[in-house]
């Protein structure tokens, strides 16, 4: 039972991750140098700082568990960690 639940969680995670990869250039054009929150393959919040995105998520009363928050680098910038 629990493993079915975990598989569902992975499915949601993988869908969000695939959306992020497949739409990366579009996302970069629209939200470059910003943080974005993704839920069910939709951008539900974006802002220049992580805290601002988090505030917007709380305002919309969205559950953190189903969300992905990523930073989208600006076009022409490469991030080295």
């Amino acid at each position, binding site marked *: 039972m629990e493993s079915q639940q975990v*598989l569902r969680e*992975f499915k*949601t*995670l993988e869908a969000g991750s*695939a959306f992020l990869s497949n739409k990366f250039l579009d996302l970069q054009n629209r939200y470059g140098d910003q943080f974005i929150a993704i839920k069910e393959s939709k951008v539900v919040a974006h802002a220049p*700082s992580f805290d601002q995105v*988090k505030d917007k998520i709380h305002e919309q009363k969205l559950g953190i*568990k189903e969300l992905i928050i990523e*930073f989208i680098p600006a076009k022409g910038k490469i991030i080295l*960690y």
Partner: protein
Amino acid sequence: MRFNLELIKTPESERVRLNLISRQPHSYGNIIAVVDTGSPKTVISARDASLLKISVDKSAKSSPLIGFGRGTIPARQISQFKFLIKSADNQIKSLEMPTDIVDIIALNTLGRDHVIQAYQIPTIIGLDFLRVNKLKLVIDFEGDSAYLEDITPDSLNQALN
């Protein structure tokens, strides 16, 4: 057993990512991590630590992280952080390992630019993840695939049988 990685190609860069689920008590949730063989350590990012509300109050201080964004970033270590990963054939593998977590309470006392930049950095899968969990990393740009392979004796025996 194979665990597929996402091989991300953009005009400016390539990345290899691993999807994980945290099963740390009280901190269940999703993590999209970047595989970075230049990092000796696996580090849970500031934004994942914040989103998953990972408590590090009682955890030992770890060495500050250098070369990880601007300046140094304070970190703590959880001795047995619990992760789940999913194999290509939908098996779930549970992993536990010492893991550094960005100390967001200490981080948030630093300058605003420093903090904003630190939150841009994702969770990093370092070389320790491969060593501790006995995983082999394969990246094949020509074949457009990347994966981790379980090389524990049990897994190898299963593959032979």
